[in-house]
């Protein structure tokens, strides 16, 4: 119950930070930071998938209320959370579903964290910019690249500060 409340507070903190701070920190309309997806990437792996999906959908939808393209964030958050388990299985060869549930994300090495975070952020940003621009073009590719680097760097930094440094917090 305490864990749930803690994640509830984290949910609100990430949402407020995204909407009131990071939404305004874009660089020349190209690099847009979306560090709130770190909340989704560090959801406990013991959670049921429907719980993860609903948390991702809620977070995305609430963030969408403040965006010009309602639905885009919700779509991308749900997509990333859905792919997360498959990606974890892929980068932890030999691990079954039960092993994944035992995986402590905060105790992994920096290299592992980079391998885990960046591809999922790339998927998020690719889906997001293709959705809101409704096309695949050089401009979208530039936004995707810049935003992936920006969000990835922020997420890695926050992961080191708030998750890894304190070890297991779940």
């Amino acid at each position, binding site marked *: 119950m305490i864990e749930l409340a803690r994640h509830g507070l984290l949910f609100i903190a990430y949402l407020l930070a995204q909407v009131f701070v990071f939404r305004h920190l874009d660089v020349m309309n190209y690099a847009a930071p979306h560090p709130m997806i770190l909340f989704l990437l560090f959801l406990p792996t013991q959670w049921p998938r*429907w719980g993860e*999906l609903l948390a991702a959908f809620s977070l995305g939808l609430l963030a969408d209320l403040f965006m010009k393209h309602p639905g885009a964030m919700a779509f991308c958050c749900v997509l990333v959370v859905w792919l997360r388990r498959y990606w974890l299985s892929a980068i932890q060869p030999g691990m079954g579903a039960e092993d994944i549930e035992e995986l402590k994300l905060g105790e992994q090495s920096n290299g592992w964290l980079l391998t885990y975070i960046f591809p999922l952020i790339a998927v998020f940003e690719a889906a997001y910019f293709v959705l809101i621009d409704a096309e695949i073009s050089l401009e979208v590719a530039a936004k995707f690249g810049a935003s992936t680097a920006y969000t990835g760097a922020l997420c890695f930094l926050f992961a080191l500060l708030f998750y890894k440094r304190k070890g297991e917090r779940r």
Partner: protein
Amino acid sequence: MERLLAFLGRYYNLMLFLALELFAYSLLANHNENQRQAFSGWFLNVTGWMQESNANLVAYFNLDEENRELQAENIRLRREMNQLQVSLKKIKSRAPDTFGFLALSADTTDSLDAKAADFAAIPARVISNSAYSNYNYLAVDAGSAEGVKPGMGVVSAQGVAGMVVSAGEEYAMAMSLLNLNFNVSAKVKGKNVMGSFGWKGKRADQGALMYVPDHYHLVPGDTVVTSGYSSIFPENFLLGRISSVKPSQEHEGFHEIIVNLSVDFHTLDFVYLVENPYKTALDTLKPETAP
């Protein structure tokens, strides 16, 4: 039932994922025109592909009949071409007798006819069609990749069939002539009586020529064709033949003219997508003359 429950129990996460994604995308598409168009283009391509596959199968069993229809159309076109060539020669041969006046007239007619005949015609096959509602549409297997664009006319060997309203890359959707919203400027061939042609929604084989004043003498059997005044259809595409003429109850001083449609929409298959050669000029003029 048990199997269904077992299936739902096994795949409920996947179904929840798909439902949430679908809901999020529909939210996006409902609030943004670009996303809506991208989705309709994608949806049109997918449904078009499925309908085309179905139409391919049906067409395979109807190849003989289709070939016969195409041959008949080729013969008709060849005859029409020959008749036009004969008429042209006649006009030119009369030129010296009229001190050049007819020669000038013939040249002018030539250039106008050449331009009017120079319309784009893109062949296509009907892959989906309906004739049973008040607002019928048909889908064809040609799209923007072939040059199809909204506003082009759809004609078959028998006559006018509809008008393109949206075009995906490979498929296009057209408003059928059997649609209450369909209207086209028309005239009675040989008499040059103008009117507006539309469908009244009762029978799939009859339309109506409207707004023709009752002092014009029209009889059953007269041919109704496009006038070329709308920006959609070139002139002289067959719409049908008049089946009855009587005083209009709705509009005093006008005829009520019922027209037997030339196109049988239940067997419609091969069509051409055409564009009025004067479309650009007509479209340019519209905003200046519109009230």
